[in-house]
């Protein structure tokens, strides 16, 4: 084929087909599809569910305390104040999922920025930035999160920022190694020779070609963020009651373990379901984007 024959449409066509192949591989990944279905259902339930339930998540009903699951209309039973557990679970899901999602967006932005700069400039700048990543990873995440949460104001926004501030390192590592290899490729050198600015090369040439791995890392970051919120809220330093989150619903569950085990079991299942789903999706995306599987 001559160079002239490979017009822009043909190149676009190839790109589209490669994209389709990745998408098809993703759809064939059964566990990832199960994950997508679970997340869609969970989000839908959390958004629409509270309007459909006959109970308000904050309504206290002292006559209906400690009702076991499937008592009347209480699907998952009630808590020590007679509040409907299902309504609380869905409202908590709104908080937990939003916090995790927002934390993912912020930490992906931080991680990508640091990774791109470190990978592009390499040498001293790159080395120092990547050592900073290593240094952050020396701190056990739970210890760092708890200390920060105890020192700062524990509202949902602050918790989101704290989780983001302690989970960008994975993305930074992934992006840095991607950028470092892309940096040496011909199209980057061509752009450089054509006089493109550093910022333009970083965004247009490098970042656009590193989207796949970033998406995978971001998906896994959501899973991690849900877990982290659960940990610190369970230990009493995260989202504060009466605002419910999946973590703080488990906060007092241990003392009722003998009399009302559903208080501990139901929120934990929700967390496990959400985290497992995001991990499955991340795994499926990684397989789908791995171009080596094509050959």
């Amino acid at each position, binding site marked *: 084929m001559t160079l002239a024959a490979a017009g822009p449409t043909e190149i676009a066509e190839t790109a589209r087909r490669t994209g389709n192949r990745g998408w098809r591989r993703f759809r064939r990944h059964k566990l990832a599809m199960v994950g997508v279905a679970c997340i869609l259902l969970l989000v839908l339930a959390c958004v629409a569910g509270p309007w459909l339930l006959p109970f308000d998540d904050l309504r206290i009903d002292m006559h209906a305390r400690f009702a076991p699951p499937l008592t009347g209309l209480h699907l998952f039973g009630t808590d020590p104040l007679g509040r409907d557990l299902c309504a609380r679970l869905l409202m908590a899901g709104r908080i937990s999922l939003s916090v995790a999602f927002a934390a993912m967006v912020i930490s992906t932005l931080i991680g990508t920025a640091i990774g791109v700069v470190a990978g592009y400039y390499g040498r001293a700048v790159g080395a120092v930035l990547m050592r900073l990543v290593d240094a952050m990873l020396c701190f056990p995440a739970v210890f760092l999160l708890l*200390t920060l949460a105890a020192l700062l104001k524990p509202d949902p926004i602050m918790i989101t920022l704290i989780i983001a501030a302690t989970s960008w390192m994975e993305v930074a590592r992934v992006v840095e190694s991607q950028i470092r290899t892309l940096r040496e490729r011909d199209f980057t050198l061509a752009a450089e020779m054509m006089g493109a600015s550093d910022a333009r090369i970083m965004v247009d040439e490098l970042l656009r070609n590193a989207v796949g791995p970033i998406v995978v890392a971001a998906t896994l970051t959501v899973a991690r963020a849900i*877990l982290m919120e659960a*940990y610190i809220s369970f230990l009493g330093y995260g989202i504060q009651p009466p605002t419910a989150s999946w973590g703080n619903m488990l906060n007092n569950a241990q003392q009722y*373990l003998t009399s009302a085990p559903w208080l*501990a*079991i139901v929120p934990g299942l929700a967390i496990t379901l959400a985290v497992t789903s995001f991990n499955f999706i991340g795994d499926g995306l990684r397989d789908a984007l791995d171009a080596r599987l094509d050959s």
Partner: protein
Amino acid sequence: MAQFLFGRALQSLLLLWLVSMIGFAVLHLAPGGPLSQFALVPGMTQERLAQIAHDMGLDRSLPVQYWEWASRLLTGDWGRSYRDQSPVLAVIGSHLFATIELMATAILIAVLLGVWIGVMGAVRRYSFADMLATVGAMVALSIPTFWFGLVVIYIFSVRLQWLPAGNMYTVGDGSLLDFLHHLIAPALVLALVEVAIWSRYMRASMIDVINQDYIRTARAKGLPEKRVLIRHALRNALLPMITLAGLELPTLLGGALVTETVFTWPGMGRLFLDSLGYRDYPVVMGILMFSALLVLVGNLLADILCAVADPRIRLD
């Protein structure tokens, strides 16, 4: 080897400096800095506050403060607990052993189970058991440790009454058997995530090794498959696991904190949470820095051990 050690030590020093900078930044993050807890004391006056600030050296410039804080860390003077005025390092030391017992048991379980599951998965790749282990590991990684602890307590302590629901000893009983009885549940809970991670890495490492030429040679020589797998493959596949042990330290420490809370195990994690509750910041900061240093040293040791065991690394 000397060059490798020198380079690695230099890198660790740079890391140590960055770790201390992060720690110092966290310390000064509280609104009002380290002074904030005194501002709430009833009857506190502005003059008294300024006096305390002066005594603590807070009126000096940040670089000077950092220098003093860091040099005190290096000389082992980590401050005193607000609760009982005992030195922070001594407080940490008195809780460290319980955490190490818990972590060591969990690592032992994770290594034995994880290596076994990983090798089995690599040998019978894509079999039903391998698929089950793969999905199982993913789910295990997604279960919150504290919740798994609650479930274990509910099943084995509340329902079956086989295991105690917490603490290290029964009151009035201090025997080894009693200790082990209390250790089983928290160690298993802490080990769950590690078993999942170890089995995944072990499987990948084993598959890598099995496809090498020297394994084909060993098979071609007519060695029995078991001997090929254990003597030739497993020994080499285990090498990267030394590094993994170092990398897993932060996860293990974080898991220990949560597990100790659920099982009221008197270790460093519980001490950390208690200190947070009492706003005993010297101890909180002490444990934060101590755990980071532990991870740093652990990683350095793992790298050196790896280089000692595997001559190929030293050549790079």
